[in-house]
């Protein structure tokens, strides 16, 4: 029977406590840091050779869908009542309200070093030391809203620009794809100003600190962000019935993307699953 993923602002105090406790336990067990490591390992940029799976590629959505399911599975092994909630940043847009409250994620980082000093994931609490990181600080950092160079969270309209796209993705299936739902949602633009980074990318940058880099998984908000991203994929499928994951076939030997993207029936590393198999997960979970 399918379980539900909820809007984080609707979680009861008990649900919040159980979610936080499960995260801390997965961390204590050492499993959490494996997720950080995996996310760092699976970043290949599209100006370089090699297979792209997690970012700058059509499989951005199925890869993170499966990644999220793995983490949720780890949480549910600790407490079967727990599911990953989503953060609807189009509605919860303040740095001091949910999910940035002390019973959930805690607040922004302090001015001097962006260190998070409140909530369950503050280093001072002793239960959230960064073990896998791009830089060597052991504490979680945030810079909500980037006060020194303010950034707005994406809006419902920004999401709409992705949801309106009628095809899932378009050649060259990378960060320069102008059209297609995937890159509009992932949020790679051209140009130099902050307006260039949209939706998912912009949210990472709005949170700042640890969420800016390859080790972004160190901030548990990562999962809530990606649950909301994942929810958009489900919404998009409902808005465009019959529209499938693309590319349907692997780009051939003459194509610049040959061997660099995963097609609908290709295996998605590090798993054996295909994007096709991840398109419909309605028997596993539903968003409410």
């Amino acid at each position, binding site marked *: 029977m399918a379980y539900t993923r909820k809007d984080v602002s609707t979680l009861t105090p008990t649900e919040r406590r159980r979610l936080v406790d499960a995260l801390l336990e997965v961390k204590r067990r050492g499993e959490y840091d494996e997720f950080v490591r995996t996310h760092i390992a*699976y970043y290949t940029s*599209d100006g*370089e050779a*090699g*297979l792209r799976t997690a970012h700058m590629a059509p499989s951005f959505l199925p890869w993170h869908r499966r990644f999220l399911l793995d983490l949720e599975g780890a949480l549910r092994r600790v407490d079967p009542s727990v599911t990953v909630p989503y953060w609807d940043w189009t509605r919860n847009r303040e740095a001091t309200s949910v999910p940035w409250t002390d019973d959930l994620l805690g607040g922004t980082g302090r001015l001097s070093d962006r260190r998070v000093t409140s909530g369950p994931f503050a280093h001072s609490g002793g239960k959230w030391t960064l073990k896998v990181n791009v*830089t060597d600080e052991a504490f979680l950092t945030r810079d909500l809203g980037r006060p020194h160079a303010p950034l707005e969270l994406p809006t419902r309209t920004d999401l709409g620009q992705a949801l309106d796209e009628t095809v899932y993705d378009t050649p060259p299936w990378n*960060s320069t794809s102008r059209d297609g739902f995937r890159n509009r949602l992932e949020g790679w633009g051209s140009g130099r100003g902050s307006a260039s980074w949209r939706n998912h990318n912009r949210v990472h940058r709005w949170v700042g*600190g640890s969420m800016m880099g390859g080790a972004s998984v160190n901030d548990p908000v990562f999962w809530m962000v990606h649950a909301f991203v994942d929810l958009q994929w489900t919404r998009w499928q409902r808005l465009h019935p019959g529209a499938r994951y693309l590319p349907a076939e692997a780009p051939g030997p003459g194509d610049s993307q040959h061997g660099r993207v995963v097609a609908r029936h290709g295996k998605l590393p590090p798993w054996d699953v295909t994007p096709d198999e991840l398109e419909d997960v309605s028997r596993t979970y539903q968003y409410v």
Partner: protein
Amino acid sequence: MRGVFASAVTAALTPLVTASSRPAPARSSGQSSHPASERAAAPRAHRPPESPAHRQDTEYPHATAYAQDLAFDEMYRGRRIIGFRTLAGRDADEWYVTVDGRPLHVMRRADGTWLTMVDHYRSYATPLEAARGAVDEMPPGSRLRDTGHGPWREEGHHGVHP
């Protein structure tokens, strides 16, 4: 010819030693136009022992086979950022960038812009700007970790970095 080149290398590396306490000017790329074969012949013994290039020899031996052209060397927000670009490799745009002596993995985007592991969800026009952007995000006192990526693309690493 070998002696002339050796002294040119030493002259090029002198700012790395003497500028440790004051800002070094950012240099434009391509300051050396020596052909690859001559660069490869430059004896390592001519590098001043305490320069970042020497530490590079001992800490990052893999890099010294390639890093030959100093593209930038500056102090930015209290951190030393250095970028070497190799023109001798398979690819014209192999970069080796360090922040306070530690490698910063820079990656290329398909549109020609650059990003780093520190600032992962946007890109910059040049490796120098990407390095500055990385410094902007590093907490004071923190240093880059060696995540095992290395600054170089290596054969066989397709899509996954160990």
